[in-house]
């Protein structure tokens, strides 16, 4: 594609001048980041894909307002965090943790490991994973997003605050509350070890 070597700003100007197809280049550059953030925040693939579509839709519509004060990667990152947060918020009422009978990765239910299923280590690992998923689903969308950005994406408090459009202190508190809740949920695991 002819735009592959061009800078983000050149591509942005081309899009704003009527070259709609050039947007695919920006999508190719940032899909991986956007999908990764969306996946970690939403916790499942289909929600992440929905968030990705929304991110690129909003990104295109808001491209004229992009002023280059941050990099385009950061800009898409913020939109991704916001869209994923909205998807989580939308799905939250119906996303109550339920104990599933089958091991279906596409379903949002928590698959608790069968205690009689195998060696102790494998059992503990599955138990931790299941508990973690359950604990994450108990967090509010803001707490969940703040925790993912802090713990998994290694973003600073200021970056989290900017992405969620909240005050830095509120971002710090959201991370702290998420840590507290997760520790409470995961505490029983460590009693048995």
């Amino acid at each position: 594609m002819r735009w592959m070597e061009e800078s983000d700003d050149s591509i942005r100007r081309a899009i704003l001048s009527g070259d709609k197809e050039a947007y695919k280049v920006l999508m190719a550059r940032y899909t991986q980041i956007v999908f990764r953030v969306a996946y970690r925040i939403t916790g499942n693939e289909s929600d992440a894909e929905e968030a990705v579509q929304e991110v690129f839709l909003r990104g295109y519509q808001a491209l004229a307002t992009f002023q280059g004060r941050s990099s385009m990667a950061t800009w898409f990152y913020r939109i991704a965090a916001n869209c994923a947060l909205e998807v989580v918020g939308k799905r939250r009422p119906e996303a109550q943790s339920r104990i599933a009978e089958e091991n279906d990765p596409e379903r949002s239910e928590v698959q608790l490991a069968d205690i009689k299923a195998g060696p102790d280590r494998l059992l503990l690992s599955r138990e931790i994973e299941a508990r973690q998923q359950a604990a994450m689903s108990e967090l509010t969308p803001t707490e969940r997003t703040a925790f993912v950005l802090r713990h998994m994406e290694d973003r600073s408090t200021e970056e989290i605050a900017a992405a969620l459009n909240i005050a830095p202190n509120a971002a710090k508190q959201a991370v702290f509350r998420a840590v507290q809740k997760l520790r409470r949920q995961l505490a029983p695991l460590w009693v048995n070890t």
Partner: protein
Amino acid sequence: MKHLEEAELVEHYYEESANMADSERHLKACPVCAKRYAELCRDLDGVATPTPPARREDYIEQVWQSIGASLPVYEKPRRSWIRYYRPLGWAAACVLLVAVTFVAGRRWERKQASSVAVAVDPHARQRVVIVVLGDHLDRSERLLVQLNHADGNDLSASPLRSEARELLASNRLVRQSAVQAGDLNVEASLDRLERLLMELSNEPDNLTEADLNRLRQEMNTDGLLFDIRVLRSWVRSPGPEQQSAPATKGVPI
């Protein structure tokens, strides 16, 4: 020793503590906080970071297919033209405003000037002339009366001469106005008055009775006084009827 709060331990874990060195020292010195911090690290280290599943090669195309149709094509901005020419546009507007204001001001000024001229000419101007002429005739009449009644006890010509010199200048102006207006009667009377004023201005300081009589006879000051009184009566009653029939009644002396 004050123990670290849980929030402080979390901040230390994420390396966002304001005093990393202090909390590090405390954790080394305080076994209670060190144990709590070790538990926190164990819990948070145990939180797995999910690895997103790999995307298919055509994933971007797939996303494009789903959103591409709803994306409008941006129109080539004409704003760039406007952006470059906007300052010029403002400058042109300012120049135009100044020009319009200037032209309007000039027109207004002309209109005002013509209206003033209309106001002055003829009535206002006539009133001004009448006032000036009336004052001049009054002073001239007083001078002639003094001259006609001067006797041997009152022969100092100095006051008469200074008054005559002052009246001489104004009389020339008034006479020229009468000439321009084509008023021959007034012009003739003022001409005679001017000759008298000229003589009087050039008289020596010590006048004799004989000098005065000579001047009265040569200049016919009685007749001139009569003319001045007639003129003054015209000026005081400038209506058409009085102008055509001048009053003969003089000012009482």
